[in-house]
């Protein structure tokens, strides 16, 4: 430990928490609070309270100077969804897609029956096509994971470098969430709800498209 570092007692959500100061990252404050029993999670938003109920948001990587008067709050966003939207398994599937494609924009449009239509933007296409990237769209049904994720959709102007047709399993001029789209029909004959996920299926379809002739 740096000889200038020392333990400082701060408040996190009105609970005294001992941290290593005087300068510390936001994420470390949250972790220390969690370790010392404060009822927060690491993904809560941290803020430092200033005067007159004003506060400043502290990012995970932000370094702050702390002292015994420092007061922090860690708060979660309050998620709201209509009762008929996003069944839990569907929401988990979407989380899995985001984790599998970090940095890619994921657009979710909830259905009225608990499923969702999803678009993942900017997926690399690889060699066979003139275009470098495409979006991929698909629907997760409300009975997921018991139902296959099928079909998928990509940009409608996809062209092969070898100027051949699209090939089997690809049909143009469909519509997905308002976008003109090519439909990719790749049904999983052995879909296993204990093992298969929407993210895994998407990876398989992407790989298939990259290898397609």
């Amino acid at each position: 430990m740096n000889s200038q570092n020392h333990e400082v007692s701060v408040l996190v959500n009105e609970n005294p928490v001992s941290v290593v100061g005087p300068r510390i990252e936001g994420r470390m404050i949250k972790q220390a609070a969690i370790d010392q029993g404060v009822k927060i999670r690491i993904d809560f938003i941290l803020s430092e309270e200033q005067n007159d109920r004003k506060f400043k948001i502290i990012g995970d990587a932000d370094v702050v100077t702390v002292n015994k008067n420092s007061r922090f709050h860690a708060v979660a966003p309050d998620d709201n969804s209509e009762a008929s939207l996003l069944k839990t398994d569907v929401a988990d599937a979407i989380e899995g897609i985001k984790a599998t494609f970090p940095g890619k924009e994921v657009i979710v449009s909830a259905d009225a029956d608990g499923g969702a239509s999803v678009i993942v933007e900017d997926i690399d296409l690889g060699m066979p096509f003139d275009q470098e990237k495409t979006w991929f769209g698909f629907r997760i049904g409300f009975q997921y994971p018991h139902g296959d994720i099928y079909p998928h959709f990509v940009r409608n102007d996809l062209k092969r470098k070898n100027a051949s047709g699209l090939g089997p399993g690809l049909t143009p001029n469909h519509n997905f969430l308002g976008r003109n789209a090519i439909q990719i029909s790749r049904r999983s004959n052995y879909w296993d709800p204990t093992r298969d996920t929407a993210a895994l299926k998407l990876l398989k379809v992407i790989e298939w498209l990259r290898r397609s002739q």
Partner: protein
Amino acid sequence: MKPLVNLVIPYSVWSQLKSHLFPGDGDEHGAALVVGSASSEREIRLLAKKVVLAKDGADYVPGSRSYRVLNPSFILQCALECRDDGMGLLLLHNHGGTNSVTFSNVDIESHERGYPALLDILRQQIVGGLVFAENAIAGDIWFPNGDRRTVDHATIVGPVTTRLYQSPPPRPPASGTHYDRQARLFGDRGQEIFSKYKVGIIGAGGAGSLVNEFLARLGVGHIVIIDPERLDPSNVSRVVDSSSWDAMTRLRENRFRWLRCIGDHLAAHKVSIASRVARKANSRIRIEPIIGNVVNDDVAMRLVDCDYLFLAADSAQARLVFNAIVHQYLIPGIQIGAKVPVDQETGVVGEPYSVVRPVVPDHGCLSCNGLILPSKITDETLSDEQRKAQRYVEDSEIFAPSVITLNSVAAGHATNEFAFNVTGLAHATRRPGHHNDPYDYIYFEPRGRVIRYESPRKNAACRECGMTSKSRLARGDAVTLPTRIRSQNG
């Protein structure tokens, strides 16, 4: 059985909230309610003081885990205000649908993730979530002691009372022949509402005794009636069902002082007569006659879980306590009286009038309207000896005339106001072609056959009904009433 949780919302707060949640776009919107609380054996009441609207696109944004989220910055801003003012925080949004609503799994998971932290921030005030459909509410309330309850219903109080449930309540039983004629107006639902209501009446004299009889005959299920006095022979002309025997008139008009003293001690208490009247009118009624002064804390606290209050006593102190209970506990009330002013010097009788003043937690209070005179409060705190020693002039009202017919106009109108309000039949706003508003004070002047309306004013900085942090509005059990501590006075 644990008491139910009832969220009480003033009409103005509800109007603001409803417009925000249901603007006609069919979409979800969010907001927060700042609430006080009051607990009794009957129910736990969450008292909505104000709504903080979440701005779409800034405070209420698309979520990664859900359709929409309330932004943590918005939540923290509300939480810090509640923390500093000692209030609770309810975060809310709406779903589609009309007459029923429930939380989604996403909603509940979010509560379980985030509310323990909010309980810590709010320093042990209540935290919770609400979800609304157009005519429905569901609530998940987290208490500092670790308890967690659902909201049974919400009551919107104002010019008309309405209720929201999670789903439509079952059809009430038929009213029976006893109330058949009035059930044709109020319906079986209205009659059921009367039967479940607890109403407080402050004062069992001329006006209060009439209110008591009217409410009992309407079918109100529970009445608390408060008055410290015994019947005087001069009251018999005005107190319902009273007699010379109740007043011990013969003894009290006897030439022997000791017999007069016996008469003074044997005369019936006014609340005992009221109790008798109520039971005659409704054998199933629960009536609590309290021989006591509402200015004493132990008596005043008997009213804080009422659903409606009538003030039929004219002391400034009683007005102060009544006004405080209405606003601190969000209980709608009505002040009634009749006055025959007499000029002290000339003896000339002025214009007699009956008056009805609705007092609801929305529209200005008796204090805002100069109806609680500080000088009178000071006078009333003095003993008779102190008053005489300071040679205060006797208030002409003490000897003023009082007439049952004037009282009955006020009492009848006030109980009509109650009946139509609580059954949801009253008009919430001014009717086309009419000049009076639902909150207006009404004066009936019989000599000129005149009915006058007076719009109450509201002082935003009022300590009783204002929105400042120092106001007692919606504070519930968190602050004390302006009452006398009973233990110091025996």
